[in-house]
């Protein structure tokens, strides 16, 4: 490089002689910071959790949680075992009503309407907010009847309409190709991953607005897990998804927003930090979140 001609060198050194501007910070961004698509205050909100506490008898399992769950996004609930993730998730479609002694304080608003209001029809809520569980739990009936179960419950009888709903739901759940020749076999004969996608098809057959998933992939093999994760990405254009997972890499891969819960001194689950997933996994703001996501918790 030192072979360059004197003239060139002079130009370089000439520039060098000029007085530098005062040194300042020119540009600066924060890692994990993104455009407006990650700004909760600018997104349409599907579910609003307002100062919600959930009790089992006298035990306050979840304490005073307030959070906004955006429409057509995937929100992950993470945190150590026993911190109240499943309890919180179940409260979003009043599944906790089924547990005797369980009661709530505060509100959960679906499109602005409190699902705990006395005039609310619980069956209607569960139609609009579906649930997929950790262990695939097809009913002991045919693949077809599993998916048609909900629509029938809501009064659809016509065979051609049911056929259409079943096929569409199985397609959206990315399991149609696997089961189209086995529609009248028992759902229990499918593989674990297929069963879970069948359960997702069953959940979407009643056209819910929100799908709640409690560790939907934790009982599945890695390939089935990735299929479910891919499926979630496709589903989010039509649904709002809330997922509980104990697998942090899964939360990082699939979700747009992440809420980190932890128990407080009274052993109640509290919301420690909630924000865009990219931020939670690159630059969390709370020390406890950092310790948990980096695997140094406890």
């Amino acid at each position, binding site marked *: 490089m030192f072979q360059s001609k004197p003239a060139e060198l002079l130009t370089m050194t000439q520039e060098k002689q000029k007085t530098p501007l005062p040194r300042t*910070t020119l540009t600066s*961004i924060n*890692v994990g910071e993104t455009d407006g698509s990650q700004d909760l205050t600018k997104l349409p909100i599907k579910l609003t959790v307002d100062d919600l506490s959930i009790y089992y008898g006298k035990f306050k399992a979840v304490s005073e949680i307030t959070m906004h769950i955006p429409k057509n996004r995937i929100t992950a609930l993470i945190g150590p075992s026993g911190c109240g993730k499943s309890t919180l998730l179940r409260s979003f479609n009043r599944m906790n009503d089924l547990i005797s002694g369980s009661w709530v304080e505060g509100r959960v608003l679906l499109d602005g309407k409190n699902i705990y209001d006395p005039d609310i029809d619980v069956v209607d809520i569960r139609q609009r907010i579906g649930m997929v569980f950790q262990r695939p739990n097809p009913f002991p009936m045919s693949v077809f009847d599993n998916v048609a179960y909900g629509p029938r419950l809501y009064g659809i009888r016509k065979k051609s309409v049911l056929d259409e709903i079943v096929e569409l739901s199985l397609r959206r759940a990315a399991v149609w190709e696997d089961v189209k020749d086995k529609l009248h076999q028992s759902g229990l004969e499918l593989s674990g991953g297929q069963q879970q996608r069948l359960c997702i098809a069953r959940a979407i057959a009643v056209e819910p607005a929100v799908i709640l998933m409690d560790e939907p992939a934790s009982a599945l093999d890695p390939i089935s897990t990735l299929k479910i994760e891919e499926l979630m990405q496709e589903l989010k254009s039509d649904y709002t998804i809330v997922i509980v997972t104990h697998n942090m890499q899964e939360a990082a891969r699939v979700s747009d927003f992440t809420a980190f819960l932890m128990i407080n001194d009274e052993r109640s689950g509290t919301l420690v930090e909630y924000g865009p997933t990219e931020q939670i996994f690159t630059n969390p703001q709370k020390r406890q979140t950092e310790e948990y996501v980096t*695997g140094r918790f406890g």
Partner: protein
Amino acid sequence: MPRQTLDREIHHLQDEVLLLGSMVEQALLNAIDALKRRDVESAKHVYLNDDLINEKRYAIENRVLILFATQQPIAHDLRLLAAILEVITELERMGDYAKGIAKIVMRIGQSDIPIPGREISRMGDQSVSMLHRALSAFITEDVPMAYRIPKEDDLVDDLYNQVYHKMMAAMIADPEIIDHSNCIMWVVHNIERTADRVTNICERTIFIATGELLEIDASDDEWDDEDEL
């Protein structure tokens, strides 16, 4: 579930970065020393040793990539490892500057052209000192220090200007030495660039500690147009 494996690997990598840093510091000091003593043999040594610096850099990069693949580092761990990738690139470049100086010493050989040794030594010492402290700040995540060190770059720039004036005067007095004087200007250019790159290391320190990606303006990147030569 504590991360003993990851923590151990990170500590090891930090040691390796410091080791790479001291190899670069030594290369710069040796190259400048060879210039002052017009010692072609020892310049050749610096020139050839650059391979070791490159090897060390790739070994560190490889370890970091393996950790990305096997340990899925997150948050602070992720920022630290990403910053290490940046810093070793800077260090390798600085090693190239030392190699460039060594090459010039080999070219100048025993010629008796004037060398402003005092200024060049001071530039080298100052740059190496900045580098050394920047690497300590990098390892200890000392943010105030990371903000302070780039300010010292002015000293290096002042010395650069002094050498420039000296060499210009010498060239005017004796046009015969223009070619060799250019070589000397490349030496000081390389030292000056080394000090500039220290700023990048400081930026990465701030990034690890705060998550903020910022650019501390290197003083030689902006010029006031009105200022005459």
